């Protein structure tokens, strides 16, 4: 056990240290309250502290108080050592946060017995802390696994639905083509019955109905493909991903979000190399940025533009998402990546979108994410992902734009 002895009297300090060492403990000493505090705030701090009541500047009870107030310091069993034996003093000491107290001059056997109590409690405390820690980690893992399972189930469902839709779409399309061909063959037999308004109408409208049906089928096909690509099962390892494809897929999937408020313009680098990443996560980030961009534009009450561009940099690829919205107000700019930060009304936004984006890009991919924003003009988010999948691991824009 590591034990701290704090006493301004060198003789009793040394005697105590010698006694504890004889009993096999690792005893460190402090000659006043300040030193005691600094030792107790270190990593691997002692598990048990014996503090003299009377010390200059910071006395024993004050050390107790400060230690108990500081939530980050690790648990320590504190015994106050004092010549005072008044009942009132005992109450003050325990009230300050001490666990036990030993009257001076101490009896060796009593000290030994009380130390055993202290060690037992300290040991339990440590075990408890470890257990809590384990539980927290397990809880986090459980949460992630649950999320992954949910995504996987969703992915399976989406790809199942895609299959279910693709098959009928195939024969709907084939049958409409058949109607188109048949109409062309039948048309001459209808002759020229000029003046029959019903027939004129049909002759005019049937081909249009067929064309529009074919267009609709094409659209369904595109949406289903995007849905299937988007709901790809989550991968355990990074995969070399066509980011342009991920961008287009996400745009299609998010059509419902931006379609009514903005047009999308894309400028995708055809030479963009495949980039190692977790595609599902990257698509989630893109989706969050698109949704934010659409909301920023919706706030302006007029139709705007979202521009999405990709480009190849020296050792990374860059994705830019710009909107023509109102821009992020200056006072919020440092906070946008903070979890739970939201300017939306209660129930509208969770304030997790950009925090998740930050965590995915910076922590999972060693990439970078930052933004430029101009009030009244709009905001551009920049993402960079290392082409080698390793990256420097440093977000050099971190300090410049916001504080985590």
């Amino acid at each position, binding site marked *: 056990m590591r034990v701290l002895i704090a006493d301004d009297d060198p003789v009793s300090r040394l005697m105590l240290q010698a006694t504890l060492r004889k009993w096999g403990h690792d005893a460190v000493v402090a000659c006043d309250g300040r030193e005691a505090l600094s030792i107790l705030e270190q990593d691997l701090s002692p598990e048990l502290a014996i503090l003299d009541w009377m010390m200059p500047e910071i006395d024993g009870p004050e050390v107790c108080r400060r230690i108990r107030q500081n939530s980050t310091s690790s648990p320590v069993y504190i015994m106050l050592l004092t010549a005072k034996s008044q009942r009132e003093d005992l109450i003050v000491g325990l009230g300050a946060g001490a666990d036990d107290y030993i009257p001076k001059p101490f009896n060796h056997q009593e000290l030994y017995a009380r130390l055993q109590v202290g060690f037992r409690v300290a040991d339990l405390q440590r075990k408890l802390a470890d257990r809590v820690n384990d539980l927290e980690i397990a809880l986090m893992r459980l949460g992630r696994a649950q999320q992954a399972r949910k995504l996987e189930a969703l992915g399976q469902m989406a*790809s199942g639905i*895609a*299959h279910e839709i*693709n*098959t*009928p*779409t*195939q*024969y*709907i*399309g*084939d*049958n409409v*083509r*058949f109607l188109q*061909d*048949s109409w062309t063959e039948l048309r001459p037999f209808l002759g020229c019955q000029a003046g029959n308004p019903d027939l004129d109408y049909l002759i005019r409208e049937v081909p249009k109905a067929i064309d529009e049906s*074919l267009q609709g*089928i*094409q659209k*369904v*096909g595109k949406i289903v*493909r995007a849905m299937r690509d988007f709901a790809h099962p989550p991968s355990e390892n990074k*995969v*070399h*991903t*066509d980011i342009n494809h991920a961008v287009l897929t996400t745009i299609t999937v998010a059509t419902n979000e931006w379609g009514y408020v903005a047009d999308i313009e894309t400028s995708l680098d055809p030479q963009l*190399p*495949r980039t190692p990443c977790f595609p599902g996560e990257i698509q989630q980030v893109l989706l969050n940025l698109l949704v934010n961009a659409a909301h920023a534009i919706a706030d302006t009450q007029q139709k705007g533009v979202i521009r999405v561009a990709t480009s190849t940099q020296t050792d990374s690829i860059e994705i830019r998402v710009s909107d023509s919205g109102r821009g992020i107000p200056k006072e919020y700019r440092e906070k946008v990546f903070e979890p739970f930060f939201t300017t939306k009304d209660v129930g509208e936004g969770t304030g997790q979108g950009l925090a998740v984006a930050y965590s995915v890009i910076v922590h999972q991919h060693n990439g970078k994410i930052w933004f430029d924003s101009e009030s009244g003009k709009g905001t551009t988010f920049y993402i960079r992902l290392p082409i*080698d999948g*390793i990256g420097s691991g440093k977000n050099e824009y971190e300090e410049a734009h916001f504080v985590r």
Partner: protein
Amino acid sequence: MSMKKRILFVDDDAQVLQGLRRGLRSMKDEWQMEFASCGKEALDAMNSTPIDVLVTDMRMPGIDGVQVLVEAFEHYPQTIRVVLSGHATAETLFRAASATHMILIKPCDTELIKARVQQMLRRNERLRDESLRSLVAKVAAVPSAPMLFLQVVKELESENCSLEKIAQFVSMDMGMAASVLHFVNSGYFGGRSPISSPERAVHLLGVEAVRDLLITNRACSAQRTSDFRSFDATMVWSQGIGASVGARAIAYAHSENSAMADDAFAAGLFHDIGQVVLGRALGTFYDSVVERALSRGEPVWMAERDVIGSTHAEVGAHVLGLWGMPDAVVDAVAFHHSPSESGASEFGALTALHLADAMEEQKLMEAQGWSRTVDRGYLRQLGLEGRWEHWMNAMSKDGIKL
């Protein structure tokens, strides 16, 4: 008038088959369409009468699409084999990769089905001799140079494997390059236009897919010494690399058009692939043809034309066409010995390949001035006759750079 083509559609969904029957009705004068509602029925139909084109779904109860494709490849290799699927996983497509000419993803417009199938049929008829065609059809892929194949395997297995390096090795090897281009151009990535750069194909596929395709599913394997006997196989590979780099340099020196340079590179890499295919298809008989050419001191392609009836250039173009290569590459390979027969009147991948090939030979013979194999009439027609030295320089410059 040619006979109607027999096309067999296989799908477990009756409405899909009905839809195809109706939607493709406009082809009734050219195609005789048949329909099978399961794998077993498809195999029976193929066994009773040979078919020209097989169009199959992948996920079917019982005998699935992969099995139908593989059976068709083994027993009726000359059949054009097409996947039409809405839910094919990458794994199943990789498994059937060397038995598949083309992948169409549901929903697929009948106009596209018509166009793609007709294109394949045209490409298949490039080689007129039907018996040679069926022999050649058994060759699903060409082997790769063992050294390069090993390098790729090693790279794929390494902890921090680099796609760049894999792309480099694959680009130098006609076997692996043909396999990745074949798969990428088959339609796996949707209806994009075909590409000719093996490097780009590797990047499109990514590490995992390259591994699945080349290693796990053995779409390509390292060449064994027993693959070839009398003609020096390593020559074909090294000349392929020489011609590819040379043709790209010449194309690039002519105009800085990277698409044409890519085509020229692929044309160079694959220009003698027909020799490998003929070697595999005909075995010792092809050796005797090569020996005949050597003993008479005439080009191999002349002996091939006299004895087999078709040259390795024609055979090469035929298989490259079936593997979905862009037309520019296929034509360049087909006419690289006699470019004036192509009818092309503009500089293209063919021009670059013809020049690079002639110059390679020139180097081999250590001869000066005009190569005896170069088609001067063709160069005159293109107005390029005075440029020989210029191309020589372009090629040697690039040679030094590499």
